[in-house]
């Protein structure tokens, strides 16, 4: 049986991993005067420290260095993965919580700097990227009073309007507008959909999927080219464990990378290297206002996983980072990078820049198929024969093409209820089911793009 000891370091145990060790911040240079350094920021050695980094006792930063450190992680993630380039219009998903508040702040600061450079520059070659903010109003799934939600929306409007110049468009969209018919109709349909899912965890996960679909809709209808999420290290650590627990080990690596281009509008995670604790600290240090819209504590499997990770964190504060680092060693997918820019209107300097920084694709460019409900890539052996899609295009497609986790926790157990369930699913998911077994042609197209003469070929 594998070793039980908490500090086992037998040779096979940690060959090739760097763990069980607090990350060493910039303390080495600082610890050379003994006690005088206790009262100084370990980085600049000038100001007074106000807070600890994740490293614990050793890393006490002053406010400025702490913020710079955090912003630095953000900036590096953005640059290294070519997340945001001048012609982009990025949509920041804003939930009101500390992580999305910080990512909004950082994106704004980056945009502000770019604007100043643009204004100061005679040669206006590189335009400034645009920023929009999207808030999804999920009040129809909860029992908040309308007063509560209205106040929250007001607060959000204020936050966004204060982040100008450059000004940012704010979209406040109710979750039920995922269905093309909105208004009362949408609310009813949403309620019906959620009621049809008996598993608590399934309900929560389905709601997350709907959120992403809605963000995609807002972004594509309004000309945005990137969606920015404030997902932090802690949330990713929880996702690693919960995906493992739900049998989604194969697709796990797709969800936790910096870039996710599965969808029409690529989704990027610039705060991937920032632990929640640091983001919380920054919010309180900088007075960044948070809009607390408690969507209820997670229950079911997701709730169990967060409590588990919390317990682990208490036992060892660097556990979240280790979890994410381990999962980071799993092989990503070909869509875990920013798609190459083929638009000849984009300055070639930008395209060269992006090419240089984009991750090289891993392994073969396989045409993965995806679960229509959660969009997770399906393992080839789990994938049913494509011959099945002939004939009846109704139930068999969805059941057959969904991943095992969705089949268990989302799809109704009773086959007689399936028809009804399909009728309340958002159209985007049904479409995916119908075409799920035709693989991902966009990547193939990318390879031959420059030789295609016209768009005559029907993109399926």
């Amino acid at each position, binding site marked *: *049986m*594998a*070793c*039980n*000891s*908490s*500090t*086992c*370091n*037998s*040779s*096979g*145990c*940690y*060959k*090739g*991993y*760097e*763990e*069980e*060790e607090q990350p060493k911040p910039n303390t080495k240079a600082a610890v050379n005067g003994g006690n005088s350094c206790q009262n100084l920021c370990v980085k600049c050695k000038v100001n007074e420290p106000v807070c600890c980094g994740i490293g614990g006792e050793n890393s006490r930063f002053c406010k400025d260095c702490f913020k710079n450190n955090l912003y630095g992680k953000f900036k590096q993630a953005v640059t290294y993965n070519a997340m945001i380039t001048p012609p982009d219009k990025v949509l920041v998903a804003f939930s009101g919580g500390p992580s999305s508040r910080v990512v909004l702040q950082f994106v704004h600061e980056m945009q502000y700097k770019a604007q100043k450079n643009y204004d100061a520059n005679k040669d206006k070659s590189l335009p400034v990227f645009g920023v929009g903010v999207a808030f999804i109003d999920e009040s129809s799934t909860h029992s908040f009073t309308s007063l509560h939600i209205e106040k929250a929306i007001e607060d959000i409007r204020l936050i966004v309007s204060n982040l100008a110049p450059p000004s940012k468009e704010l979209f406040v969209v109710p979750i039920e507008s995922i269905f093309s018919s909105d208004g009362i109709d949408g609310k009813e349909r949403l309620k019906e959909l959620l009621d049809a899912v*008996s*598993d608590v*965890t399934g309900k929560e996960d389905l709601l997350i999927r709907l959120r992403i679909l809605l963000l995609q809709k807002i972004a594509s209808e309004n000309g945005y080219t990137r969606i920015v999420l404030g997902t932090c290290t802690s949330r990713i650590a929880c996702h*690693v*464990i919960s*995906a*493992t*627990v*739900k*049998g*989604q*080990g*194969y697709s*796990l*690596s797709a969800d936790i990378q910096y870039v996710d281009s599965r969808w029409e509008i690529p989704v990027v995670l610039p705060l991937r290297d920032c632990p929640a604790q640091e983001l919380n600290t920054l919010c309180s240090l900088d007075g960044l206002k948070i809009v607390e819209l408690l969507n209820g504590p997670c229950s*079911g*499997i997701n709730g*169990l996983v967060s409590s*588990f990770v919390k*317990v*682990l964190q208490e*036992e060892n504060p660097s*556990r979240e980072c*280790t*979890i994410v*680092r*381990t*999962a980071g*060693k*799993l*092989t990503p997918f070909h869509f875990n990078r920013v798609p190459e820019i083929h638009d000849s209107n984009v300055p070639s300097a930008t395209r060269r820049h992006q090419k240089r920084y984009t991750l090289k694709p891993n392994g073969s460019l396989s045409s993965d198929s995806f679960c229509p409900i959660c969009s997770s890539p399906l*393992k080839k052996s789990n994938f049913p024969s494509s011959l099945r899609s002939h004939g009846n295009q109704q139930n068999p497609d969805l059941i057959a093409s969904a991943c*095992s*986790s969705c089949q*268990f926790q989302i799809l109704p157990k009773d086959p007689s209820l399936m028809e009804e369930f399909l009728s309340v699913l958002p159209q985007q998911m049904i479409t995916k089911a119908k075409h799920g077994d035709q693989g991902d042609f966009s990547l193939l197209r990318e390879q031959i793009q420059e030789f295609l003469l016209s768009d005559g070929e029907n993109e399926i």
Partner: protein
Amino acid sequence: MEADSKPKKSGARLCCVCNQNRAALKRPKTLEQICRECFYAVFEEEIHQVILENQLFKPGERIAIGASGGKDSTVLAYVLSELNRRHNYGLDLFLLSVDEGITGYRDDSLETVKRNELQYGLPLKIVSYKDLYGWTMDEIVKMIGLKNNCTFCGVFRRQALDRGAALLKVDKVATGHNADDIAETVLLNILRGDIARLSRCTSIITGEDGPIPRCKPFKYTYEKEIVMYAYFKKLDYFSTKCIYSPNAYRGFAREFIKDLERTRPRAILDIIKSGEDFRISTTTKMPEQGTCERCGYISSQKWCKACVLLEGLNRGLPKLGIGRNQGLNSDGKKDRKRDSRTPSIESKQCGSLEF
């Protein structure tokens, strides 16, 4: 998430498989209501299918069952000999036990194994740390304390099993690792950053390129079901935790899995499935394999871990082999200075055991 429960309003619930007998229990894996006979049947049949589908055994093979006297190994011995008979696997089965020298724990559980030998009619071989290494766990703990003792025991036991297997001249070792164990191990490896182990830990057969391959017929069998089987069949087993293990890190994972099982029983199998499906590049998998210079056992370093640890014990350096700087000093191998306080007995050279 109740699976097929058929509430019969008439009172007595019938077994959902045979529909004749009264249901005596709820299956932990599926929550089905089932009678005893059908439970035995489905339990045994599932294991039989795992053995067939994964081709764990070949006719004529000699198999050593790692027997600790605990519920997993007792049930394994019982079920394997039963299936061997019923389905004509054609195997020669043996019980192989390791005596770590833990008073009040191992000596009691060994009595159980000796009884199993008689009850199941399987020849028993016991190998002891004292004979192999010159140290009992009691002595080791006295020297190094209660931290890292699991490291010593685990490393020593692995080699002990292999040596015992070589003595018995068996082709494979079967251990009682169950689904809960493997799920815990998957989680542990994620938590501790061991990507190499993560890629190997869900394999049902391991060590095929080493001295003795090992297999885990209980890979998909729930711990609760093993307990239920042993309970209903009134099998003789020893059920106390090792007295030196209360602080093991595995405890975190175990608690979590227990909570998971309550909410969603299939989560245990889902964790194993995730472990099997993780996309891990083949280049990160195997450490380079060689042999230990001192004893000839399989090792990825110059000395196998057991030899390193033993050297530490014999020289009064309990931390040797533990922690980051685990390499021996450059003069360590040649320097045989003995600490006058502790008796130094080197482990036997393995030349005679044909590694």
